[in-house]
């Protein structure tokens, strides 16, 4: 076959010149982001089912607010508008998942706007933000409107503590039932002992009730009060498995985070003399959004370390902070603050865990 000059010219028409490598992996930022959204979907849908359709509205408002804020900021900052990369959708969705189910709709609207405008775009946009935008938004809301953020939990018929729980003891003092019936399990753990101390009653029945097999089952499957996203540990774990399988996240942060909480709680309740130690540990793992936080928020690539060693240090740090907040702090749960605090030291961790270059070891 002979190639003529005209053919030669035609052959070169579509030629692209660029530096090696000439082939690329299929993974891309939009693919990563949309897979995270997909992974959150089972838990989201289940939330709408268990708390009612109002939750769907909260989520929708949160996401739309995030998308609008992102477009406006990118327009004002004269940047390409990248709302289709999925990152703003994740921020909106995650923020909604960190809200109580019955918040007024202006809460997600303002929260998402804060997340995107202040925590993300003013820091330089995707890749440059120091704090996880969704968690920064939640912290902002919690500081500004604490009542709306901590009281509007879902009330199951008869109060969550009573729901289908064979262990519930009808002889529990009414004051205790009142104080914990509308709270989350961790809220009950924080408030219940105080009430019982005031009444000079033993805390043992409360611990027996919270650290029970039935409670663990409820926490795992999801018919329990809490934030929109923390209902079902099972569905969150299914989503997490998808991300692990697709290598969007690695095990380092979530496992070190959860293991640290488990160890600290195990030691603490061992010295407290709690008989059902395994349930006490599982109670802390499955409640308070630890699963959601460990697998979906602490693993946020932008705000967590890049090295594997760094990731483990990050996870352990989160675990210590969350445990300290839960056991001795003012909040019943400590997942979001633990992650935000560790976000702040991520650059330092990255610097300290820089791998030893080949040939210099």
């Amino acid at each position, binding site marked *: *076959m002979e190639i003529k000059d005209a053919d030669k010219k035609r052959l070169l028409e579509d030629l692209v010149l660029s530096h090696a490598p000439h082939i690329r992996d299929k993974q891309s930022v939009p693919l990563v982001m949309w897979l995270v959204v997909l992974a959150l979907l089972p838990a989201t849908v289940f939330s709408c089912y268990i708390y009612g359709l109002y939750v769907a509205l909260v989520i929708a408002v949160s996401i739309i607010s995030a998308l609008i804020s992102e477009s406006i900021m990118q327009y004002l900052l004269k940047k390409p508008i990248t709302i289709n990369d999925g990152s703003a959708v994740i921020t909106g969705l995650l923020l909604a998942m960190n809200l109580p189910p019955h918040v007024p709709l202006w809460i997600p609207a303002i929260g998402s706007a804060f997340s995107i405008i202040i925590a993300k775009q003013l820091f330089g946009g*995707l890749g440059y933000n120091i704090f996880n935008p969704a968690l920064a938004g939640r912290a902002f809301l919690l500081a500004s409107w604490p009542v709306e953020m901590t009281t509007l939990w879902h009330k199951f018929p008869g109060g969550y503590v009573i729901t289908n729980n064979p262990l519930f003891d009808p002889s529990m003092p009414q004051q205790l039932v009142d104080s914990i019936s509308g709270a989350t399990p961790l809220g009950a753990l924080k408030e219940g002992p105080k009430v019982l101390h005031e009444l000079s009653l033993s805390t043992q029945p409360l611990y027996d009730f919270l650290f029970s097999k039935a409670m663990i089952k409820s926490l795992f499957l999801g018919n329990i009060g809490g934030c929109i996203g923390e209902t079902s540990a099972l569905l969150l774990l299914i989503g997490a498995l998808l991300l692990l399988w697709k290598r969007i996240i690695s095990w380092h942060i979530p496992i070190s985070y959860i293991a640290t909480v488990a160890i600290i709680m195990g030691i603490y309740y061992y010295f407290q003399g709690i008989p059902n130690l395994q349930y006490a540990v599982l109670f802390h793992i499955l409640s308070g959004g630890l699963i959601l936080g460990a697998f979906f928020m602490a693993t946020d690539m932008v705000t967590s370390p890049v090295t594997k060693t760094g990731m483990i240090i990050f996870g352990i740090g989160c675990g210590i902070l969350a445990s300290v907040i839960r056991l001795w702090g003012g909040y019943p749960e400590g997942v979001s603050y633990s992650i935000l605090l560790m976000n702040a030291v991520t650059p330092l961790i990255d610097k300290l865990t820089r791998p030893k270059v080949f040939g210099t070891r």
Partner: protein
Amino acid sequence: MMIHSFHGGIHPPENKHFTNRIPFKYLSVPQKCYIPLQQHIGKPATPIVEVGQFVEEGQLIGQANGLISANVHATVPGKVVEIAEYHTPYSEHGLCVVIEAEGSFSTSGKVREKNDISTLDRDAILEKVKAAGIVGLGGAAFPTAVKLNPPANRTIDTLIINGSECEPYLTVDDMLMQTHPEEIIEGIHISMKILGVSKAYIGIEKNKALAIKALQTAVANTKSENISVVPLRTRYPQGAEKQLIYTITGREVPSGGLPMDVNVVVQNVGTIYAIREAVLFDKPLIERYITVTGKIVKKPGNYKVRFGTRVIDILEECGGLTENPAKIIMGGPMCGLALNHMDIPIVKGTSGILFLAKHEVEVDSFRPCIRCGRCVSVCPMNLMPCDLGNAVEKQRYDIAEKLHPFDCIMCGSCSYVCPSKRPLSHFIKVVQTVLSAKR
């Protein structure tokens, strides 16, 4: 023996099935050969022929210039019609000797007589390698005689033969090992004699089962107890020199150092084959095997090509393409060079020509780094490509300098995995260039 595992690495689609069962074929000699005087690392050879002069096949036309350089020979018999600058893989203005084929081949196709090398001493054998103009055929094209003759203060105890061929698509080394295992063993014995080493390893990725088997059989048949075939995990960049040495010996070439710093010399299987040809038959390096491949190539295969044959001539012989290429790559897809036209000649370091169609080529613009750490986890040198890339983007070469840019081996794994499609290895190349210019 213990196999060590280097850090990181990637698994790009191998795409070797296009050509890994296709036996070698000769390509016909082109009418005109454009033979660059620089086909190696080091100084270009000095032309010693004149325009109008007739040359024989294998005649010396370029004399090695200085310590690190290599001889260049006429790859076809004929008339020197031009000595002029042409676009070569190494330079846009590379001096080439253009030979118009004419006359008869003096060596090709003739019965050859083996030299008896048992009477020759090491220096005499090394001289033959040097005279033949052999360079590393794995791609780096470092003059082989220099590599086989380390300074007196260095002792070499191990020879490693690189048959890993970790670049996707390429199958020349695989095919050479499948079809010429005994010749390779012979070449290894010669190289061991030159280096005075008593142990040699042949590293081959496990995806080349036929090559592994062929060489194991050849080792057994020749009773070469001092040569071991080492099957290696299939992982890019297994064939990178430092990673290969580490995998087989556990020795880490120091930063900024050379294999000889850890008493090792590495040679590609193709180079070993060329050494045998030169030493036993006094054959200069005038041709090599290359893989011509890609989904859009009508007749992909492994071809024996004379240096100076242009890409366009090769394409004609391979039946052309089924659609327009979006990229023409000299070498493999990970480290190869993208060409902007097809008049570029094949040189000693060319291992293949790859044609990629539009849908196989990523032309997306890149996004900001999202700090996912994938580049850090795949970097075989343990660098922080993300930080290097960010520093370059901000033109903070002072920051980049502290991140070991010169340890980068340009394997491209970081760019390959980056979900933001950042050209990380290119950024590192930029740091190297800028910092070298400052020094």
